[in-house]
């Protein structure tokens, strides 16, 4: 009995399957559905899918940060000494990028006499300033920094997750002015004049 039912089901399914194929073939042959239209729709579908894939790829590329577009032009060094309490930052970044500039100073109440060789620990720093700059259409930004005497840590963060913050250590040492100041007369002109 079970064998008969199974055989009938198989035959039934086979008849149904053959019927639907025959019906489709008949319909196309009869001209009820345009063959070229089907091909066209398939091509369009493929194109749409390809476009979506390209868009995804492009978005992915756009989201990938090009570090060369985010640069600090000035200062050129990561750590240096100056005599004045004013310094400057110049840089480039794509328009509308937000750049956060934070300045941390040290009170040095503990008389640890910090300098570039003896830097403070993270706990010794106190935030002096935090400012957000929006990069203009020219793709440049600049900022005048008001520093404090002693060690200053300037942290520059671009609004781009992949890029790490840039840290600059500036040692403001007013006593440096008398010893280290570049006020020498250019020698080359003097030599040229003497030769003449």
């Amino acid at each position, binding site marked *: 009995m079970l064998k008969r039912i199974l055989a009938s089901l198989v035959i039934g399914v086979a008849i149904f399957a053959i019927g639907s194929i025959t019906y489709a073939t008949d319909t196309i042959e009869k001209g009820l559905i345009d063959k070229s239209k089907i091909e066209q729709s398939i091509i369009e579908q493929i194109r749409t899918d390809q476009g979506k894939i390209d868009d995804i790829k492009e978005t992915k590329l756009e989201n990938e940060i090009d570090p060369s577009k985010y640069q600090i*032009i*000035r200062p050129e060094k990561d750590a240096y000494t*100056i005599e*004045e309490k*004013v*310094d*400057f930052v*110049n840089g*480039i970044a794509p328009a509308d990028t937000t750049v956060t500039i934070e300045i941390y100073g040290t009170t040095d109440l503990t008389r640890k006499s910090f300098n570039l060789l003896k830097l403070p620990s993270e706990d010794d720093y106190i935030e002096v300033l935090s400012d957000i700059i929006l990069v*203009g*259409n*020219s*793709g*440049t930004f*600049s*900022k*005048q920094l008001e520093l404090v005497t002693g060690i200053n840590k300037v942290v520059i963060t671009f609004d781009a997750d992949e890029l790490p913050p840039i840290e600059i250590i500036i040692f403001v040492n007013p006593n440096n002015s008398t010893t280290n*100041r*570049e*006020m*020498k*007369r*250019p020698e*080359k*002109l*003097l030599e*040229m*004049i003497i030769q*003449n």
Partner: protein
Amino acid sequence: MKERLKTFLLISLVSISLLLTKRLWIELPHEVFGLFAKGDKVYSASYLLSDMIMPNKYLLNFNEKYLTLFYDDSKYRLWTNSRKIFANLLGSKDTKIVDLSDEEFLSYKRKPSMVFYFPEKVNTFILAKALDVRDPSSIVDTIPNVKDIYIYLGKGDPFFVFTDGDRHTGIYDKAIDISELKEQFMEIEKEKGYNYYYSARDTYGIDKDIYIPYEMKNSLATVYVENEIRNLDEEDKRKIAERYFGKSIDYIREIVEGNESTIYEYNHRVLKLNINGTVEYYHPLEDTVKKRNLYESLSTSAEFISQNAGITKGMYLARVEELESGENLGYNLTFRYRVRGLPVILGNEEVVDFIQIEVFNNHIRSYKHFIRKDMNRAIGGMTEEIKLLTSQDIIDINYDFIVEEYLGAKKLKASKEESIKINQILSFIEDITLSYFDPCLKDMEDELIPVWAIRTETGLYAFNAYDGKLEYRRDK
């Protein structure tokens, strides 16, 4: 009776002698100076010229990092204090002169120094004469025109660099005393009351001296101006005509035009006082002038302006062009003026410059002036001082516009892939100067607008220094 008559006569004689002596004492100094003036025309002319030839900007390099730019010299009077130094230098016979390359000159600019920028190239001989140098040294032959003058202010002996933009001439004379200027320079550095600037050459690698402020600490004074010639009654107009012709109005022909402009004519000379505030004067050439002399032409112009228009404070020589009219050779001179130390840009469609003169040595052929005077109104009730935008802010706000102008000038098409970089734009810019813009809308109480005037290869653009709006443009 006879004795009384004698006494009366004696008293009369004494009174007359007293009166005449009084007149003599008052008039004598004028006549004495008048005699000298006739014999030494150069002196009076040089006095006027020295006021008209002065720099537009002053760059102070304290060291490689700190530098500032002054547009207005009224606070520190750097030019006034340096005149004597330049006069000594241009008159010295003991100078050593050497040509410098661009690189050498640039390296000196990073040393403690001061640079004086003139609005246009100045003839070095004229500069020497304006500084009252009787016998200029060979410097005037070595470098005939000068655009900027550099003074080294670091340790050791001073030296100078005269540059016309292409050629840099180093001049050394240890006898020149610059100690006072150096002291003043150090004092300014110590005060720290200046705006810090950066060099676009050092920052963006462009091949031009453009300096951009990090911040602007202050605002500019609100200035109101008025037409010098406005709402004049008949009597005032006639007085002006008498001044120009040096004759009584009885000898001068007067014609009033329908538009209320008045024309005066005397002995082939014509003066027109226009309703729009301009004054025009014309005097055709009487003799042929086959050789032009710039110094004589400038002196003639300076004296003419002084006698007729009166020396307006802040007037300066902006442009010198050679002029040829038939067989005659002369100059077309343009004078502009500064208000509160800053140059003024005129927004008048009809009159671009304040004074235009056609001069052929000792003869003024045509003269046109449109003077707008500072009304010196005290502004009260200002609650909050608004800071000026920096020139970088102006470029950022108007970046797309400037890029369009750049692409138009370079005959390039905008490309989506390749954006125009800041160094390309800064290379396109020739000069950035803080100025006042005069919209020329009213005869009186017209408010001047503080602007950043950006001069490019193709034109002049005046952007409002408070909101960045383009107020005026003039194509080259």
